[in-house]
């Protein structure tokens, strides 16, 4: 057959990979592409901005430390940082990286008075409370922040602070996003939005580069089609292979590794709508869900989660009862709340009303997210709930006609990633201010005591006092149970072990591939 096809003049590209070209398939749309200052979706993609550009300081997920990037050292005060920049570094277009380039980058993203800022919006700029930047000498800059804050350096490790070539930005104008230029190990050769991104080595990269000479990010929203591509040898690796295909992939000789991530999946419980406005009902739902069952069904793509923050992580509060799977306890709590099982009935009732809940989920989910909802429905039914379930496409789901409507549903499935190993990033999202339409506190949870602790922790400089506040907030939110915490995702990645020693993710990140962890045999 191959001969017949070749006979009619077709060039068949199967298994024609270059030895050193890494083709990565992703079903996530890396919105904003490779331009770190415009990137929106970075989780579960190859994170192109990190291949192309670098910040002054980087966050090391293995040690939870801030490590040198384009700055070789730094000194801090309560509200400022003075960076000593590496010398001899150039952007991939030959522009030197120096204090002028750093000043340009900070002013472009944060200084509204700067002509380079005009007419642009930067999605994650709020991560750094920037006040001003001063050039001390050709290789030293001082950045001042609006107020003292804990973890002062973290904001500098995030995408808006990745350095871009001033020459390239000025030349490309608003089209810069399509052809970003940085100091990272790769440069963008071709960017086709929503289709593919091609990168090759940046010859002026100063450090040991990752092994692939070229990288192709193949964007394909159809996960089944990506799995076929992997099986057919058209791509080298994919994240989140469809759960139902994992066994077949392993049987065909593919390797599927999983890495713990800082992504959690959960169910919001609407605290303003009956019957989930009753904390006893919400606690019962937490006990009803078999979280270990979800982890098992997802073939290792998640680990059961019993509270608001990841177990064992920084400032985790261990001293509270876990919401372990306990249908009997769920039943007791529901009895206590007045929802009792009528003789011979399967659905609990109170005052002649059924214990009925409406559950909203997003359609088109894959992996562990697709497994969670059916498990919850069956577990809630087992303890006497009547569950109606509706799946909506994501834009409708988060709108005020979906989970953003406090009067509509009782349960809304959602997920989030913690950018830094600090519970603040997660706890912030359950504050009153984070309710829709501002953010995605889809439980409409509001507790002034909790708000005060979480908001206070944002500016608390005393580490011990801050941890105490964050732990107390975890105790409060766990008792109030505005969420059913379900799983901490373990992100699977599938690849051919005959070609690769490893294709590794950065553990505890938001599912980011470690380019240096791509190792050929």
């Amino acid at each position, binding site marked *: *057959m*191959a001969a017949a*096809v070749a006979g009619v*003049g*077709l*060039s*068949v*590209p*199967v298994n*024609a990979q*270059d030895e050193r*070209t890494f*083709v990565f398939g992703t079903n996530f*749309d890396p*919105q*904003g592409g490779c331009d770190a200052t415009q990137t*929106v*979706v970075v*989780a579960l993609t190859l994170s192109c901005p990190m291949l192309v550009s670098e910040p002054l300081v980087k966050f090391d997920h293995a040690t939870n430390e801030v490590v040198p990037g384009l700055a070789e050292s730094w000194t801090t005060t309560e509200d400022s940082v003075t960076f000593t920049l590496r010398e001899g570094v150039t952007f991939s277009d030959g522009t030197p990286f120096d204090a002028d380039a750093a000043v340009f980058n900070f002013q472009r993203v944060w200084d509204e008075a700067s002509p380079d800022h005009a*007419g642009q*919006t*930067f*999605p*994650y*700029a*709020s*991560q750094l409370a920037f006040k001003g930047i001063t050039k001390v000498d050709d290789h030293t800059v001082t950045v001042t922040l609006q107020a003292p804050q804990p973890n002062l350096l973290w904001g500098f490790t995030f995408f808006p602070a990745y350095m871009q070539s001033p020459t390239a930005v000025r030349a490309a104008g*608003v*089209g810069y*996003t*399509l052809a970003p230029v940085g100091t990272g190990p790769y440069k963008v050769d071709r960017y*086709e*939005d*929503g*289709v*593919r991104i091609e990168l090759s080595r940046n010859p002026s990269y100063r450090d040991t580069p990752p092994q692939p000479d*070229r990288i*192709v990010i193949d964007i*394909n*929203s*159809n996960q089944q*089609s*990506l799995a*076929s591509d992997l*099986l*057919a040898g*058209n791509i080298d690796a994919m994240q989140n292979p469809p759960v139902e295909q994992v066994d077949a992939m392993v049987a065909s000789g593919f390797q599927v590794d999983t890495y713990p991530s800082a992504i959690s999946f959960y169910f919001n419980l609407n605290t303003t709508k009956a019957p989930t406005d009753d904390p006893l009902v919400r606690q019962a739902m937490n006990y009803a869900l078999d979280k270990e069952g979800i982890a098992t069904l997802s073939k290792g793509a998640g680990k059961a989660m019993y509270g608001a923050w990841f177990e064992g992580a920084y400032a985790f509060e261990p001293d509270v009862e876990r919401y372990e799977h306990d249908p009997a306890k769920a039943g007791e709590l529901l009895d206590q709340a007045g929802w009792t099982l009528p003789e011979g009935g399967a659905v609990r009732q109170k005052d002649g009303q059924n214990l009925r809940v409406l559950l909203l989920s997003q359609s088109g989910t894959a992996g562990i997210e697709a497994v969670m909802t059916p498990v919850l429905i069956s577990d809630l039914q087992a303890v006497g709930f009547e569950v109606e379930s509706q799946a909506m496409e*994501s*834009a*409708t789901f*988060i*709108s005020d*006609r*979906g989970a953003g409507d406090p009067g509509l549903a009782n349960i809304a499935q959602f997920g*989030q990633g913690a*950018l830094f190993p600090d519970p603040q*990033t997660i706890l912030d999202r359950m504050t009153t201010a*984070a309710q829709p339409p*501002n953010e*995605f506190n889809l439980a409409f949870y509001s507790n002034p005591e909790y708000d005060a602790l979480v908001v206070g922790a944002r500016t608390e400089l005393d580490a011990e006092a801050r941890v105490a506040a964050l732990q107390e907030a975890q105790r409060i939110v766990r008792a109030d149970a505005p969420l059913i915490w379900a799983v901490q995702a373990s992100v699977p990645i599938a690849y051919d072990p005959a070609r690769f020693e490893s294709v590794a993710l950065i553990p505890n990140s938001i599912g980011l591939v470690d380019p240096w962890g791509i190792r050929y045999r």
Partner: protein
Amino acid sequence: MLARRLTSSVLVLVGVIVSSFVALRLVPGDPIATMLSRASLADPAFVARFRAEYGLDEPLPIQLVAWLGHVLTGDLGTSIVSGEPVAELIWRRLLATLLLGGAAAVIAFPGGILWGIAAARSRGVLGGFLGFQPLLGLTIPPFSIGLVLIFVFAVELKVLPSSGMMSKLDGGSPGDVLAHLVLPAVTLAIYPAAMIARITQAGLQEVTAEDYVRTARAIGIPSRRITYRHALPNALLPVITAAGVLLGYLLAGAVFVESVFNWPGLGTLIVRAVLNRDYPIVQACSIVVAVAYVSLSLGADLLYMRVDPRIRFQGSTSP
């Protein structure tokens, strides 16, 4: 007649342009919230600035008028998600879809006609088999056919690529694109080919019962000559009528097939833009698809008028 068809075509286009704009705004969800729900953070100040930048904070009628003004001057705007000019994006994707649709048409029209002739001329078990096949082609969803083809030819036999328009590495040569074109084009062609086969078969069977065919047979003209020379041209008239709609299907049906094969055409662009609520892209695509449908339908009518003088005659004498 022609003037009336042109006027109705323009009205259809205006209707599509306005209704697609309004319908999109009535659907819950907006681009910025959708974008941020997928990100890990939200920043109310950024949201407000972003909405202002794209005029999303203006009342609907003002947004509509502003957009119509831009469209009339040839400015389709920029993508909210990528910032790329919509016209460039659509042009690139349209070429990919036209290639796929064109290849499918090349397979579907001759293939469907030959299929229909074979079914009409065959008798017994073979005739029954050939007559039944188009029903399968009409009822099996194209994406299922696509998945089966991928499994057989890409995953198992590894003789054709499974997705995309060119190889992931150094692709883009004519042979490479052709190899990538085979499976999606065949998948997309099956439904229209089956439809044409049914129409051709039914037309031939109907025409065969006509007096002039019986006469031809009576005076000893060979059966093959009767079919191809006398019966077929008349039997194909309904195919021409259906052609406009079927060509339109090749454009719109490509949405499913492009998704299955990750073909970087208009279909995958529309799906992605709708999910992201990328208004400028969805609106511009609606215009492109509407213009294509209307032109193809108009073209088929004109062709029909040319082939069948009765239509022309009726048209010119009708009030």
